[in-house]
């Protein structure tokens, strides 16, 4: 695995680094996989281009930015689009074209080449009413926030029946009032 910090001429596409968010996570394309060195996970793409997936992860974070949530959960949240693209050519086209359009609007370095979230969000404001954007945003509402692993990051405790509810676990423990 290669870690490359700048997409210089001479690098193969598959080695091209997809620069992560302002939070600094680094995503690497290797073969058909998107890899995160810092978080030690990889996502195998099946229908979409791996570069598209890496951009989708950044896009997901820009739509619902939570600096305390690692890339991994954004990657899981957008995975369904790769799966759906495999079954549905129209969906594949929607995503690939949507990303290509985003890159094109973002100038020479593409969408992920824009360093500041504000710059990327300015591009997103131009496309927020498109079916592409709405498809991604809509899927994230459940795809991101319904991951049980994400809940503790927000303090949400989830299922409580098996623990006997909160009757003896702080349903009325507020102290600062």
């Amino acid at each position, binding site marked *: 695995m290669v870690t490359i910090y700048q997409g210089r001429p001479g690098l193969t596409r598959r080695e091209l680094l997809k620069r992560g968010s302002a939070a600094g996570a680094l995503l690497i394309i290797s073969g058909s996989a998107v890899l995160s060195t810092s978080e030690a996970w990889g996502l195998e793409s099946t229908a979409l281009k791996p570069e598209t997936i890496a951009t989708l992860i950044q896009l997901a974070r820009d739509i*619902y930015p939570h600096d305390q949530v690692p890339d991994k959960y954004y990657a899981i949240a957008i995975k369904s689009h790769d799966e759906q693209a495999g079954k549905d050519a129209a969906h594949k086209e929607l995503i690939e074209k949507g990303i290509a359009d985003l890159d094109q609007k973002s100038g020479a370095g593409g969408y992920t080449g824009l360093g500041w979230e504000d710059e990327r969000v300015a591009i997103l404001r131009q496309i927020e009413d498109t079916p592409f954007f709405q498809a991604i945003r809509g899927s994230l509402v459940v795809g991101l926030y*319904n991951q049980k692993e994400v809940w503790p990051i927000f303090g949400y405790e989830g299922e409580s029946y098996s623990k006997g509810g909160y*009757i003896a676990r*702080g*349903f*009325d423990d*507020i102290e600062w009032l």
Partner: protein
Amino acid sequence: MPAPYALNDDSVVVIIGSGAGGGTLGNELAQKGIDVVILEAGPRIEYEDFINDEWDSFSQLAWLDNRTTGGGWRVHKDFPNLPAWIVKAVGGTTTHWAGASLRFQEHEFKGLTNYGKVEGANLLDWPITLADLEPYYAKAEDKMGVTRTNGIEGLPGNNNFKVFKAGADKLGYKECHTGNMAINSADRDGRMGCQQTGFCFQGCKWGAKWSTLYTEIPKGEATGKLEVRPSSHVLKIEHDDSGKVTSVVYADKDGKQQSQKARIVCVAGNSIESPRLLLNSASSKFPDGLANSSGQVGKNYMRHTTGSVYAIFDKPVHFWRGTTMAGIVRDEAKHDPSRGFVGGYELETLALGLPFMAAFLDPGGWGRSFTTALDHYDKMAGMWIVGEDMPQEQNAVKLHGELKDKYGMPIPDVWFTDHPNDVAMRNHAYKQGMAMYDAVGATRSFPTPPYPSTHNLGTNRMSEKASDGVVNKWGQTHDIKNLFVSDGSQFTTGAAENPTLTIVTLAIRQADYIAEQMSAKSI
């Protein structure tokens, strides 16, 4: 033991739907020795099988058949195929409901008289008064085990309530407590007390919260006079040449069509499916649908003026812990036109889990303004607004012109636009709610738009005159003597209070009337 009745048994009362209205009516009739068949579109899922998980529970219990919406409300844009949150299961929406159980106020039965002619509203007085309902309210409260009635203690206040109460005190509100809840504060009626699990909207796994699923229905079945047939979706009500209804056609669990004969038919499918069924039962004798000589079937759809206020504090609240809605301020429920609107509203505590909060806080919202709110999820408090909305004729459940369900029946198309009175009331409530939280140190608050409708009302309304509505003061249709409406679609106006206690009250009263009429052989 549950009595199975034959399809050609024409002596039975057939009830369509097993929720607050249908489940209660079924038990009440069975207790009187009357033979009852309840046809319920959804499956039977006992409370042990409920799921403490918002989306999983939603897929387990909610009515997900396709619906469309129109009109000026935001739900039309944000949830185009989910105008309402209603359950499709034995027990109906009393599986998901929160348990808030309030009597209507006297003036609310006389909307037209007390509010006057409100432009654009189709107000009407109920043909009954609070005094008519009082004895039945008392029975309903006892049946449901409503706290702060019948000597039942109130629920203890959870964290969300404590923040709410502190705000109410600061604003000088006088009537603030943990509500009149159909949730056991201690063991009662063979069911245990609330364990503060905080998943009231997902079905109470302890059975502490009243639901027809594990109260009315098994009690009725125990008489041997009630059969509940799950996965039986009624498509059409049929009648004879004299115009009396004679049978209902339903799709059974295998999708096969069956016909159940009936002496009396009671429709209790909630305010979207009930009018839809009457409209879909049109015949050459009744070309506009059953019981629709007034043209009011499906009209005057009400959903309460709702909205939520969430607020963030600088310290933790953990508002999802404990009972979802046990907290109320009633001071604004009065009719005081000096506020700039007629009718009133209640403020009730509300908490959502993280998944639903993400979906409902600001549907369609994105970016940091949205996500920084969720970042402080554990420091949030929340309340729900429920106020009287104006009946309007163009707010209606209609049959879709083209789309059909899997049985070939037109799907419902639900139209709603706020009346200016609704908007004025909501804005007042947002302001008061935000002021409550500001008073206890909120650093940011959110006036959150209405969710898909949980209170669906008014689409077969009750009226003195046959030309003004669909049913008389007993819920009997003006046009067809042996056809009744037994759910919230009977409501002439919505009042400020959560509707279920009144639905149950009307069902108990209707059971007395049906039994009387049956023994007098008039139906």
